[in-house]
C-alpha cells in the first residue's frame, strides 16, 4: 500500500511541478476556493431546480429565490474560504505569472458566454420558453466561470 502511495506521489510530482501544499500560491488557493464555491452553488441550484422541473408546472419567477440563495451561497463560501486562506497562509500579491495565467484562461473560455447569448437569441426567434432561455444563459455564465477556473488550475499546475 505504501509502495503504491509512493509511486502515486512520484507520478503526481512528475505531472505537476512539485507537492501541492508546498507549491500553491495565494492566487492558486483563491482560484481553488472560487472553483469550489461555484461547484457548490451551481450544484445546489441544479439539484433544487431539477426537482422543481420534475414537479408541477413552474414559472420563471419561482426560480428567483433559488437564484438568490445560490448567489448568497457563492458569496459566503467564497468569503469564508478566502478568510481561512488569508489567515493560514502568506498573502502574496498578484504577479505577472498570475496575470498571464488569468489572461490565458479568459482567452480559452471567452466564447462560452457569447455562444450562450447567441443561442438565447436564436431561442427567442424559435419561441422557446423563457424559463429554458434563462437557464441557458445562467448555465453558460456558470460554465464559463468554471471553465476559466479549471484552465487556471491546469496552468498553475503544469506551467505556462
Amino acid at each position: 500500500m505504501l509502495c503504491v502511495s509512493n509511486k502515486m506521489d512520484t507520478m503526481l510530482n512528475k505531472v505537476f511541478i512539485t507537492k501541492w501544499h508546498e507549491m500553491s500560491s495565494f492566487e492558486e488557493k483563491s482560484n481553488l476556493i472560487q472553483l469550489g464555491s461555484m461547484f457548490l452553488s451551481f450544484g445546489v441550484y441544479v439539484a433544487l431546480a431539477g426537482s422543481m422541473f420534475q414537479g408541477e408546472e413552474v414559472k420563471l419567477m419561482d426560480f428567483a429565490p433559488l437564484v438568490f440563495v445560490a448567489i448568497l451561497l457563492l458569496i459566503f463560501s467564497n468569503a469564508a474560504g478566502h478568510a481561512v486562506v488569508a489567515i493560514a497562509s502568506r498573502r502574496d500579491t498578484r504577479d505577472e505569472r498570475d496575470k498571464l495565467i488569468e489572461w490565458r484562461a479568459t482567452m480559452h473560455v471567452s466564447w462560452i458566454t457569447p455562444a450562450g447569448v447567441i443561442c438565447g437569441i436564436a431561442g427567442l426567434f424559435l419561441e422557446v420558453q423563457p424559463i429554458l432561455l434563462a437557464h441557458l444563459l445562467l448555465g453558460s455564465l456558470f460554465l464559463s466561470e468554471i471553465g476559466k477556473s479549471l484552465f487556471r488550475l491546469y496552468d498553475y499546475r503544469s506551467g505556462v
Partner: protein
Amino acid sequence: MMAKGKTRITNEIRRLRFQHGEMTQQALADRIGVTRQTVNAIEGSKYSPSLEVAFQIAQVFEVPLDRVFHYQASSRQE
C-alpha cells in the same frame, strides 16, 4: 524533444542562488517582486519571465543577463 510545459529558455538561477549564500527562492522572490511559486516555475523552466523580471534577477546576482538565461534554438532553426 522538449518536455511538455517546458520553455526553450534555460537558466542558472539555482546555481546562482547557492553561490549567493544559499539564497532561498522566497528571498529572491521578495527582491524581484514576484511570488516564490513564480521563482520556482522560472527555475524549473516552466515559465519564461518578462524582460523586466529577467533583468531584475540578473541585477540581484550582479551578473549579465546571458549568464542567467540561455536560449536553446530548435533543431529546425539550426
